[in-house]
């Protein structure tokens, strides 16, 4: 998997960092809610999936046995809100045995150095 270097990264108005899985806690849903509202307010919003947050991107998710709605329907709406700057930690993917081909959205993998620079060049970052 080739990871992008930071020279390809454009600063957004807001970067939302998602680090929790789509089930088992409410972090991810409430993080995506902020991204959607900010986008609806005309802000350019980017998302960074890190840690267990990468599980949110897996294809074929359902509400499932835990009885929570999950985040699949929310993520399917990102395009409608013009949220198209999507990054994923390449290390988080490989640590979990996943590749870009397993994911539902066109996300760009970033090396650890590029993740650090991504966060550094954003005027605002919210971490969930």
């Amino acid at each position, binding site marked *: 998997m080739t990871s992008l270097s930071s020279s390809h990264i454009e600063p957004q108005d807001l970067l939302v960092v998602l680090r929790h899985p789509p089930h088992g806690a409410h972090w991810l849903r409430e993080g995506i809610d*902020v991204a959607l509202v900010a986008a609806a307010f005309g802000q350019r919003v980017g998302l960074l999936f890190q840690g267990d947050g990468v599980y949110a991107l897996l294809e074929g998710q359902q509400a499932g046995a835990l009885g929570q709605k999950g985040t699949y329907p929310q993520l399917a709406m990102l395009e409608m809100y013009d949220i198209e700057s999507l990054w994923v930690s390449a290390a988080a993917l490989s640590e979990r045995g996943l590749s870009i081909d397993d994911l539902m959205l066109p996300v760009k993998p970033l090396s650890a150095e590029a993740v650090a620079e991504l966060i550094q060049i954003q005027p605002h970052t919210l971490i969930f």
Partner: protein
Amino acid sequence: MLNYALVVHAAPYSHQAALSALRFADTLVTGGHRLTTVFFYHDGVHNASALMSPPQDEVHLADGWKRLHDDHDTQLLVCIAAGLRRGLLNADEANRHGLASHNVEPPFELTGIGQLVDAMLNNDRLITFAP
């Protein structure tokens, strides 16, 4: 002098982050900065409970937030979506949902996530306190 806003994700007494946020807030205003807004989100909405009753020898977090409002005009905003789910309602919302009681009183205000975006855009710094 800078304008600050805080986001509090942590429930009171469950996590250090809620108390750390209040201590940071007090230090900000003591240092001559302006704290315009505290936005309570995720489990942080529980900081707004009017029924909070900690033992007398512990910091009363809700009173601490109210003191910031009274002394420094800090807005205390509670995310309405996160609050309603978790049983944090003011009189209007309790009425709307046909519930017998409520537990959010002024100066805490139920508000939308748009206010968080607003706080982000209109302050020099937005600092998150999360568990």
